[in-house]
């Protein structure tokens, strides 16, 4: 095998001069994959828009103020107050107003903001890992990869809690107490598909982290694999910004 390796080494050197985008083909392939994945998410978000705008806009909330105390039967109160109707899309701030360990207080979008902050922060640590990789600083890459993994895992945990709360209030794929039955179904599909991407990303990060610890990339002479998973991680982050905007903010 040794002689074979020597002979192939020369044979398989790419003689194509300067590559057009000055990136390795591996990184190029990651970019192309992300482009195609962006279209998958777009199709789901467009389906969301298509269905959402076949309903009337949310009714403006003039009843509950942020931080005000509300009872445990909040959804029923809103139903009685006429804020959740079958032909109106529900106002997200009245649906996502829970926070772990704090009961009975109206905290519109506080928890999802925290989730978003955690995910964006994990993108920052990923950038630091990539930067440390350029300097070939193995221990720093490992440290920041670990922080990124922790951030991703925390986000997934938050999502699990949010889903549990949502389901506990009666949200199902085929119906929910907030109004149009497509609301919860779309929520589960879109955030579920995104969560699946985050989960895959955490798994990839774990693999890369183990390789970093084993010194695989140090031996290889470059940390390009960290950059590639970094691209994926930033993409997942970017998609969340859109999901957050479309589902929670507007």
């Amino acid at each position, binding site marked *: 095998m040794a002689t074979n390796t020597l002979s192939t080494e020369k044979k398989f050197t790419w003689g194509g001069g300067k590559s057009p985008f000055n990136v390795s*083909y591996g990184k190029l392939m990651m970019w192309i994959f992300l482009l195609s994945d962006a279209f998958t998410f777009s199709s789901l978000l467009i389906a969301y828009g298509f269905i959402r705008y076949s309903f009337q806009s949310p009714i403006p909330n003039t009843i509950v103020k942020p931080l005000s105390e509300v009872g445990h039967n909040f959804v029923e109160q809103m139903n009685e107050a006429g804020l959740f109707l079958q032909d109106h899309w529900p106002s997200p701030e009245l649906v996502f107003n829970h926070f772990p360990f704090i009961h009975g207080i109206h905290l519109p979008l506080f928890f999802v903001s925290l989730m978003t902050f955690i995910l964006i922060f994990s993108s920052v640590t990923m950038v630091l890992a990539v930067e440390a990789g350029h300097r070939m600083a193995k221990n720093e890459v490992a440290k920041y990869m670990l922080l990124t993994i922790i951030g991703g895992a925390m986000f997934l945990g938050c999502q699990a809690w949010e889903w549990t709360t949502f389901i506990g209030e009666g949200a*199902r794929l085929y119906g929910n107490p907030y109004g149009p039955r497509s609301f919860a179904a779309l929520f589960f599909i879109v955030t579920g598909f995104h969560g699946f991407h985050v989960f895959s990303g955490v798994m990839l990060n774990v693999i890369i982290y183990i390789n970093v610890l084993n010194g695989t990339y140090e031996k290889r*002479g470059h940390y390009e694999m960290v950059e590639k998973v970094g691209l994926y991680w930033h993409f997942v982050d970017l998609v969340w910004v859109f999901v957050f905007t479309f589902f929670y903010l507007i």
Partner: protein
Amino acid sequence: MSDHNTQHSHEEHEHHEGGFFSKYVFSMDHKMIARQFLITGIIMGTIGMLMSIIFRMQLAYPDMKMPFLEGIIGHWGKDGKLDPNFYLALITIHGTIMVFYVLTAGLSGTFSNLLIPLQVGARDMASPFMNMLSYWFFFLSSVVLLLSLFVDGGPASAGWTVYPPLSALPQAIPGSGTGMTMWLIAMVLFIASALLGGINYIATVLNMRTKGMKMTRLPLTIWAFLVTAILGLLSFPVLLGGSLLLIFDRSFGTSFYMSEIVAEFAGGIERTGGSPILFQHLFWFLGHPEVYIILLPALGITSEVIATNSRKPIFGYRAMIASILAIGILSFIVWGHHMFITGMNPFLGSVFMLGTLIIAVPSAVKTFNYLATLWQGDLKLTPAMMFAIGLVSFFITGGLTGIYLGNAALDINLHDTYFVVAHFHLVMGSAAIFGMMSGIYHWYPKLFGRMMNETAGHIHFWLTIISAYCVFFPMHFMGLAGVPRRYYANTAYDQFNVFVDMNQFITIAAILGALAQLIFLVNFFYSIFKGKRSPQNPWNSNTLEWTAPVEHLHGNWPGEIPHVYRWAYDYSKPGAQEDFIPQNVPDAGQTDPNEEATGLPATH
């Protein structure tokens, strides 16, 4: 950065010489994967064609009992009568197989894999492993689709476009049950295969070209494969999203595609809030680029074959590239012309109509360039050349009816009639099949190192083109008279009874056409083992694949990869000794491959 490349390709190419399995089954060599795609495509194509014969017999002889049917399709042909539900299943699976498995995977899977590394001058694809996965996802997908023929209730029967509610409600028709679920699983596997392949094709074309192979020196085949891969990469994910929602509607009780219209048939839980039109939008956002995913590789092959066999430079090389790009871009913004009758706002309809009709411009550029290349050429009428000219013929015939169908007002009348069937079978079906055949005859020496029989090729060509026209041309008239497509029998309608004779004529022509493919199959499989050994450059072609040895080497070229000094179309250059100058031949005095070569080769 080039260090990385060395290391990667070096790692991936290390373990390759091995036993039967690593050489023929789980091969990572692009030439072997191309053969796997081709042979799987041919098998799927044969199955799809036999299905069409069965339902054509039904259309021609709706009242006749055909006892042999029971032998072929079992209880679906009880007492020699084709079951109406199975008729729907047959047209659905025929369409699915032909569109996706033959003309997408079979065509661009084969030729992108074979030609991209060879023509751009690369050792293999960017990621040979992903390339192998791409084939095996495709293989699994084919198996799942074929297995769905044997499940209770039969395979998917909602048409190849699988519109809800027929596809969304498992209880709608017999084929909406397990068969439909398996169709969706097959499609998800197929999309995975298409994406793995597409990412590879694009990365290879952009990043692994040999020295001197600028984008403007690429053969037109590569340009076509590149744009095809981009189209697939951007449109298949949308079908993935659409299928995902459909799977949830079918199995988990959501109502993305369910509206009040279907709610009362859903039973049990009320299902409202969605829209079946949403699926049509998502489907046709894939569906229309898909037409060009099928057609562009065939057009690229034709450009190459016509230029080589006319012994002339391709007419308007840059215009050809521009028209490929224009077709690619326009294909994304015209999907609505499949949906004119869905109650679309007429203004929106007119926007889609405008876009659709504009596609006629780049298409006409391509057609005229083919004709101008042929004009006064020194034509070598090989079977490949005949099929390429056949493609141009179908492209014109079928393209002209596209102008009728793209018109929103006319389409309301013609939608879902045999006019549509005639149109797309000519322009996308026959044209692309002819492009594929042309490619098979032309690159057979590269694929298998042997030549196919030319006489058999000519007989195959003439029988196929005559029968294809006899099958699809009369359908225009049936369509104009209003005969709807997808009907099991038209005998119940007096005004359609006049077409019984025509249906019989079409069916006889279709059977003749199918028999002609037998000649091809025998020629193809016989020549693999017994064909005449091929010389290195049998067609005196300029492109790089003919500089590689006939025997397949892992890594394609034994020594260094040839450098490229000129474009691919220096045929019959005045003053040159030969009537072709391969791309790897430098000009007299040219040392840097990136210089513009316009003069004569050094050997002169």
